[in-house]
């Protein structure tokens, strides 16, 4: 299981690449909505896959400000610590 930030981000990009056009370059600052055009329901589905992959639970409240891969990495890292 990925523990450090770099590995977590790598895993997130891999999961995310399943939901979007593979030609899009996924970076830390890639915004799910404005850059990738994901609908809110697709973001929620992506988050569910992330929770299952890491066997963590992410509180909806902590997702309210998350827009990018980098921001989600921090949330996932915190949830793994719990």
């Amino acid at each position: 299981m990925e523990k450090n930030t770099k590995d977590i981000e790598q895993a997130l990009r891999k999961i995310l690449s399943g939901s979007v056009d593979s030609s899009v370059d996924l970076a830390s600052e890639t915004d799910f909505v404005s850059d990738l055009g994901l609908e809110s329901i697709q973001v929620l589905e992506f988050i569910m896959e992330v929770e299952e992959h890491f066997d963590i639970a992410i509180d909806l409240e902590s997702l309210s400000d998350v827009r990018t891969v980098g921001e989600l990495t921090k949330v996932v890292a915190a949830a793994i610590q719990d």
Partner: protein
Amino acid sequence: MDKVDLLDKFKKVAANRDQLSAVGRDPTSIVIDRIISPTEAIIDGKPTILVGTNNYLGLTFDPECVAAGQTALEESGTGTTGSRMANGSYAPHLALERELADFYEVGHAMVFSTGYAANLGTMAALVNTGDVVVLDADAHASLYDGCRMSGGSVYRFRHNDMNSLANRLRRLQDKASRTLIVVEGLYSVLGDRAPLREIVALKREYGAHLLVDEAHSLGIYGAHGRGVCEELGVMDDVDFIVGTFSKSLGATGGFCASKHEVLALFRYASRPYIFTASGNPSVIATTRAALRQLQARPELRQKLRDNAKHLYDGLQALGLQLGADVSPVIAVRFERSEDAARTWEKLLEAGIYTNLFVPPATPDGTSLLRCSVSAAHTSEQIDTILNRFRDAIQPLKARAANAD
């Protein structure tokens, strides 16, 4: 950087609306010129059969309900002009609460001014900071909003997926005892039901509490019409039942019923209960009359079941893709959203009103037409609906045949 204006956000709203209109008729701007009966209206000057109204028992024009409303209007006036906390409850508010508690055989019930307020008000009172909600991902927006208002931590589990729910509860460890599991009896878009026996088993295993929203199942399932909880024999294990008067009871308002005595204290802790006007006397009166009808006329439930099966079997015979459960909520799925939109529009032109759902409003990202069946539909009306569906999907069938 350009300054952002407060009103800029509506450009995106307008763009979304225009996208809806681009397929033809905007489904969000339908005007019912005149409502004629639970199943008929004049839309665009045309007689139309309604099969998208949630009017499950068809009680909106029931003579006893109408008479009860008229009497209350004459005797008690048009409105209560304030909240129950400040202005006081009218005796019929309390009578309705007693009748609901008796109907569910649970001892306690509380009435709210809308179904939305019932969900917000129940969750806001019940869940606070430090508590946890574990919510089915397909739950209604009012339940999501209730979560937000509650201040508790909120975790979603995959729709009707018991492994996903068990995983959530397992991870909560000590917090499971202060956790509320939130599900619906009958899900309002796809028409599938919650596996409540399995959910109750998990609730027991982890020592959590359970809230079931029976908005679309009150009056439809169970020997007494109490809902899916009764149908599946789990009434004793459900902590809180919430629901609405606006579907099978043909009024407006909502409720929470519970075996827990603390429900009486929700009145002091629920902002959506405290800070809003109470239900109008006429609305409370028609709700009470409809609840009596629901109990006195089990044949309405039988007729509804027969009608649902008639429509479901007919749509299936047309080769349409439906949900697995036969229920009064029948979702007809389409692979392309433009096919759903065109079929919806053709049906409307042919005098059949259904509900169009396209992403992101659909739970699993598909596009669908939702039909809601009523006990008031005649067999002939259902045959007409099926004939119009057959005509409306003709171009799709022709296209599929050409592609083969």
